[in-house]
């Protein structure tokens, strides 16, 4: 990194203002273990303050940490899924700093011997192109508590007259994923984070919910003239949605551009994005940055991950989204788009595969799962697993369409009722008499009656006015309350009118 000021915003091609963003992300993921990282307290979200605490996670004198084995397993899954080198001894360090949400005055984290190093994630852009983001490290640590500032108008520390600490979150296991500065635009950053989230979902190790804070993202951002050395970076903190990440990066890049265009230097600092005003505020400059005085945590012994353990965890890894997408395209004859949607979300993909396997028609299953089904769960705000219409129930409905009992249009209505009542498709169809009339004898009578009742139109058709045909179809449908099988109606009408 160069400290020399970049005085002109002129790229190699002479185009003014051609600054290239250089972005690296640090992602914190809360692991969904049952208990905390170093004590037996239950992990929790949104519960009464300070109800999931004990002497250990409150940092009482004399208490000691004990490593949560499940957290190590989950972290290992993440590191392996990101292609990191894992194995040998990994140790915890103490990161020392004072803050009221940090009960021990230090965070137990990892430093120069993290769990995993040197991985990567291949990210697919909407254009179909892929780019590779290096993963510097994957390490374990504990979360801090939460401060609640009271008495001020904004709920922020400024203007508050007192602050309260909730230690329920304190000690929750976190994995920090640090990327190389391989990202070159806010859009790329968003794609990377989206696909990382999808990967973590597949690993079943975290809720990865940005709004609830189980996935948090900081970004290191700098600008450089194309091909030049990296510029001075700032750290954009805690963006709590994918949209804010992109907008925050846009705003910070614009701010740095303005500084550089004015011939000034970017100073190393932590910056905060305010989504309501789309503005960046500089929180603290790195001159007063903490010296964390890392040293090996003497209360814990090194973790030795032997190759047998690593291989066992590796063998337990699920299929990753990219591989699943390929397989879905092959096995179910799906378009890249449908396979992309269905492989991005693990439960949606599982749901689809179950339906497709029962129905035996991947395309039909994909249309329904990405269409009506996705619209239903997203509309109600449900997880796929929470849907009252399970994959077997949807498959039953699609079976009724395939055998001709229901039209596509009727099936949509039945599906809507299934989501409301939780009842099966066949039961609804039978109770409401919705089955398509596919009985040609029954339809024949209706067709004969309709043609007999409209002799004028029948004559017009015979004289070559094809348009009148639609009139007859409409009449038959009207008589059958829309339940007639349209293919059969066409066939019978044509035969009678021309016969």
């Amino acid at each position, binding site marked *: 990194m160069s400290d020399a000021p970049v005085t002109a915003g002129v790229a190699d091609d002479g185009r003014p203002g051609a600054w290239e963003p250089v972005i690296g992300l640090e992602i914190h993921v809360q692991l969904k273990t049952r208990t905390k990282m170093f004590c037996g307290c239950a992990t929790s979200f949104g519960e009464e303050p300070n109800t999931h605490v004990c*002497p250990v996670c409150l940092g009482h004198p004399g208490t000691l940490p004990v490593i949560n084995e499940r957290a190590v397993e989950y972290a290992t899954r993440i590191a392996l899924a990101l292609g990191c080198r894992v194995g040998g001894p990994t140790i915890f360090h103490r990161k020392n700093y004072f803050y009221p949400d940090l009960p021990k005055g230090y965070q137990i984290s990892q430093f120069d011997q993290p769990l995993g190093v040197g991985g990567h994630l291949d990210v697919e852009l909407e254009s179909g192109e892929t780019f590779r983001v290096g993963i510097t490290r994957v390490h374990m640590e504990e979360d801090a508590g939460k401060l609640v500032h009271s008495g001020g108008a904004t709920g922020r520390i400024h203007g508050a007259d007192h602050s309260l600490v909730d230690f329920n979150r304190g000690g929750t296991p976190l994995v920090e994923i640090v990327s190389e500065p391989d990202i070159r635009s806010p859009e790329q950053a968003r794609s990377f984070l989206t696909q990382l989230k999808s990967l973590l979902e597949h690993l079943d190790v975290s809720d990865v919910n940005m709004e609830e804070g189980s996935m948090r993202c900081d970004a290191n951002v700098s600008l450089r003239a194309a091909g030049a050395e990296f510029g001075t970076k700032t750290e954009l903190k805690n963006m709590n949605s994918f949209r804010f990440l992109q907008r925050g990066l846009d705003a910070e890049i614009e701010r740095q551009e303005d500084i550089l265009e004015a011939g000034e230097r970017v100073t190393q600092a932590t910056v905060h994005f305010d989504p309501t005003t789309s503005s960046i505020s500089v929180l603290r400059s790195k001159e007063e940055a903490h010296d964390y005085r890392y*040293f090996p945590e003497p209360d814990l012994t090194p973790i030795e991950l032997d190759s047998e353990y690593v291989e066992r965890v590796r063998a337990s890894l699920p299929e990753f989204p990219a591989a699943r997408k390929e397989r879905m395209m092959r096995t179910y004859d799906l378009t890249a788009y449908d396979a992309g949607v269905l492989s991005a979300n693990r439960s949606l993909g599982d749901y689809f595969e179950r339906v497709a396997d029962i129905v035996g028609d991947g395309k039909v299953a994909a249309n329904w799962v990405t269409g009506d089904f996705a619209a239903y769960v997203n509309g109600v705000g449900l997880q796929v697993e929470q849907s009252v219409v399970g994959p077997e129930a949807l498959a039953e409905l699609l079976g009724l369409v395939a055998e001709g009992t229901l039209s596509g249009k009727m099936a949509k209505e039945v599906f809507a009722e299934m989501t409301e009542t939780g009842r099966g498709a066949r039961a609804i169809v039978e109770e409401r008499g919705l089955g398509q009339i596919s009985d040609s004898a029954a339809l024949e009578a209706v067709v004969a009656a309709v043609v007999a009742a409209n002799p004028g139109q029948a004559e017009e058709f015979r004289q070559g006015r094809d348009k009148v045909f639609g009139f007859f179809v409409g009449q038959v449908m009207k008589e059958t309350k829309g339940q007639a099988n349209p293919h059969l109606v066409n066939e019978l009408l044509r035969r009678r009118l021309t016969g």
Partner: protein
Amino acid sequence: MNVLGLSAVECRALLESRDLSALELVTLYLDRINAVDGDVRAFLAVDAEGALRRAAEVDAIDPAQRRPWDGVPIALKDVLCVEGWETTCGSRILAGYRPPYDATAVAKLREAGLIFLGRLNMDEFAMGSSTENSGYHVTHNPWDLERVPGGSSGGSAACVAAAEAPWALGTDTGGSIRQPASLCGVVGMKPTYGAVSRYGLVAFASSLDQIGPLTRSVTDAAALLDIIAGHDPRDSTSIGLPEPIRLPTETDLTGTRFGVVTEYMGDACEPGVRQVFHDAVAAVTALGGQCEEVSLPSVEKGIAAYYIIAPAEASSNLARFDGVRYGHRAAHSDDLLEMYTRTRSEGFGAEVKRRIMIGTYVLSSGYYEAYYGQAQKTRTLIMRDFERAFAQVDFLISPTSPTVAFKVGERTDDHLAMYLSDLCTIPVNLAGLPGISLPGGFSGGLPVGVQIVGPHFSEQGLIDVAYALEQRLDIRARPALGEVRP
């Protein structure tokens, strides 16, 4: 019968035979504390009410249902968490703090049936060698009230020497059990690092701290160690001992090889201490032991390494005393930084502040390798020295402290002289080895201790040889103190 002159094991026998009730025994000790502690000042607090209540409960238990140590009293260094008591570590910053749980060692004592008499004075956060750094008061040596009892477990050693309790628990980070045991003429043992759980021991230097017994006999040290040792799932660094500890009976040392550490034999020790030590070596030889010189070339760097590693860990361990959740908080601060600064300025004493500053400095960016990194390398060299020595001999023998008890106030301004008090004991902590100090004799009427150190987890052997030497030396003098002479 002079009950106050008895060891804990002997008290247990009297309780078992019903020759003495628990209430009688506890009352005797509480009376003794009343009689002499105004002079000794070993206790920070005495829980007379709790002790008498427990004693009455024990006496009401059907003898067949009694646990092994039901009714035997003990006193505890104020660095161990006891549910329901205040635990202050001798510091003003923890005034009023009542831990919500028992330390594992304390819980084991409770389960064994022991009765807690009270909590004992110490150098603040165990930082010191004289108990003069207590945030509350100075403890006096029962052999000469103008002198210090040593430290940091000065309250524990003084209390046992003055017969205010049959035995006590202390903690040892750089000699804090063995040095005061030596200065007060009692037995003090630091177990192998990992033998006893540190859960509930308020940390000074996590990689060095161990809990251990201070007793009037080696047999009592064996019994107390057996109660408190063991692996604890709450302490990842705890291992326990390979076997339960047997009470010692062997009085012959034939075939046992002892190493006399060359580096401790120079001018470091005062002549009176050297004389007692030579007599002890002669006693070992008389018992059939073989003594030879061994060299530990790196131990002289031990104090330097220790005064980097221990403060580094302490600076981090003591960060939690920030006024946010418990203990002292300065009144009327305008912002967070002021609250932290004033709380810690008011709550910590000078020695604790000194070590926090040293520790913070040696860990800071740019200095870490030069100080903390080098100190860790030195620590490895010291471990190798001991490994080489134990390939040659079974145990090492040395004076425990280079001097007898010094006068109160004599060294308070000379920090380096104070730090040198732990010359012979510190390397043992750095290497994580077990060590025992037992009374070896007197110099100018003041006790001199002899230290025996063994390989990791050699506690049983260490106790056996210490017992043989104890029987041979047969020291019976007790401090003349108070109206009731034990």
